[in-house]
């Protein structure tokens, strides 16, 4: 059953040095506040998992929390590069970053396999590409009925998955809507999970087809309004596109980034 904790306690309890940590949310509902709390608690040697690393992984990498990343598209959407990610890969700063990279469909299906309790998933992908040559989590399988050759991807089971959602009820059930990405699969794939929420409500609206994560598959819930900024929460906030564009300058140089980190993460209990 989900435990209501402060964000600080939730990260202290569930995110450990060396963990495989998935932070999901596809453009929408990205758990930035939790990412910043991980930076503040100076976690090290994390393996970050995210389809689109986005600014949140750029910040964690630049802050020195991660030594490996499993991902499928690492850019600043609509803006350009993730400079801290590039600096780690191109120059090993603040230290080297091992990569296990996939296509969106491949990484998605790694979560699906784990959420389904299966060791692998099958898809049409990777044939003939260099991507499959650099990953030990891609293989081939033969269809036992047609003889077709298909891709297999290994199930991915994070130690902890962190997401942001619109609502939790007082029993600890979580509800989210709009673009829901791979949040359900990444939570169900993980050993533990933390959900930050915009609001805690007495009960949910009667929308039985919304995405619900019941209390008994969530480890901790933290009430963090605005906890996905500069991403957005449909019904609560808009995406801060200016922030995404400004990040290009804030992150390009190491010293500017470190200054940002000092003033906007370490010195603050929360960042907006």
């Amino acid at each position, binding site marked *: 059953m989900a435990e209501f904790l402060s964000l600080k306690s939730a990260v202290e309890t569930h995110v450990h040095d060396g963990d495989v940590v998935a932070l999901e949310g596809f453009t929408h509902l990205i758990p930035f506040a939790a990412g910043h709390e991980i930076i503040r608690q100076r976690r090290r040697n994390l393996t970050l998992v995210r389809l689109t690393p986005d600014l949140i992984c750029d910040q964690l990498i630049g802050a020195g929390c991660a030594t490996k990343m499993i991902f499928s598209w690492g850019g600043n959407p609509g803006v350009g590069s993730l400079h801290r990610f590039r600096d780690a890969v191109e120059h090993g700063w603040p230290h080297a970053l091992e990569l296990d990279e996939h296509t969106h469909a491949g990484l998605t*299906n790694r979560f699906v396999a784990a959420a389904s309790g299966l060791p692998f998933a099958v898809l049409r992908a990777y044939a003939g590409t*260099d991507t499959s040559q650099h990953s030990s989590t891609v293989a081939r399988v033969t269809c036992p009925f047609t003889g077709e050759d298909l891709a297999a991807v290994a199930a991915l089971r994070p130690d902890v998955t962190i997401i942001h959602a619109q609502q939790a009820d007082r029993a600890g059930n979580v509800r989210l809507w709009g673009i829901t990405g791979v949040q359900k699969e990444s939570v169900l794939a993980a050993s533990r999970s933390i959900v930050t929420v915009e609001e805690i409500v007495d009960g949910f609206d009667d929308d039985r087809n919304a995405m619900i994560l019941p209390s008994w598959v969530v480890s901790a819930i933290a009430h963090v309004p605005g906890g996905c900024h500069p991403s957005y929460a449909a019904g609560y906030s808009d995406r801060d*596109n200016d922030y995404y564009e400004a990040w290009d300058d804030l992150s390009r140089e190491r010293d500017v980034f470190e200054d940002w980190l000092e003033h906007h993460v370490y010195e603050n209990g929360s960042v907006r």
Partner: protein
Amino acid sequence: MSGFSTDETMTIAASRELAGARSCFVGIGLPSIAANLARALHAPGLVLVYESGTVGAKPTRLPLSIGDGELATTADFVISVPEIFNYWLQPGRIDVGMLGAAQIDRFANLNTTVIGSYERPSVRLPGAGGAPEIATACPRAIIVMRQSKRTFVDKLDFLTTIGFGDGNGARSRLGMPGFGPRVLISDLGIFRPDPETFEMTLTSLHSGATVADVRDATGWDLAVSKDLVETPEPTEEELLLLRRLHAASNTNAVN
């Protein structure tokens, strides 16, 4: 209309290629602009599908990201990412895929992963994203990218996305169902696969460009169609609507 940029010619040429398409899987940047322009111009019913899971998005301004709230609130429906890839893209339900890249080779294979070596890249690019499966599954793919010897290369630094592999027959050997890239549109001209060799061949020159210009901006020994034509210039309506789209956006960033 006199003045227009090569980027405008390229985007407008790409939007024309969407005539007759029912649905288009759209990436951010040039593909998104071209697809939204097609909706405004000649394909009002074109179903735009973004990999964030928004199907039938009808944005009134160009989205900055593929998961903008604008896409979700204007969509016919929104589904999960596993569903978009497994139920909608993979079975070939989306007619056309629009792609860009950092490097392309003569067989329309794409690199969006690294410049330089994989282990020690000089430029680390974003990676695969949805492109490989879009190019695998969509019955046809359209590639849009600016052209130079750095982007149109003899040999890719990294093969992220298969176009026609090593040429005729490669796609079927690799079990790829769709036809592959039917057209490549650059800021200089339009290229289509040769029906025999599947090498991307210059079939149309944008106004102002010469074959020599294109050769100079191509890293391989360029094949030119014997039926080479000139790309019709952007019409006033096309330019007007494209500029209106840009003006309505909160950004002109194109990546």
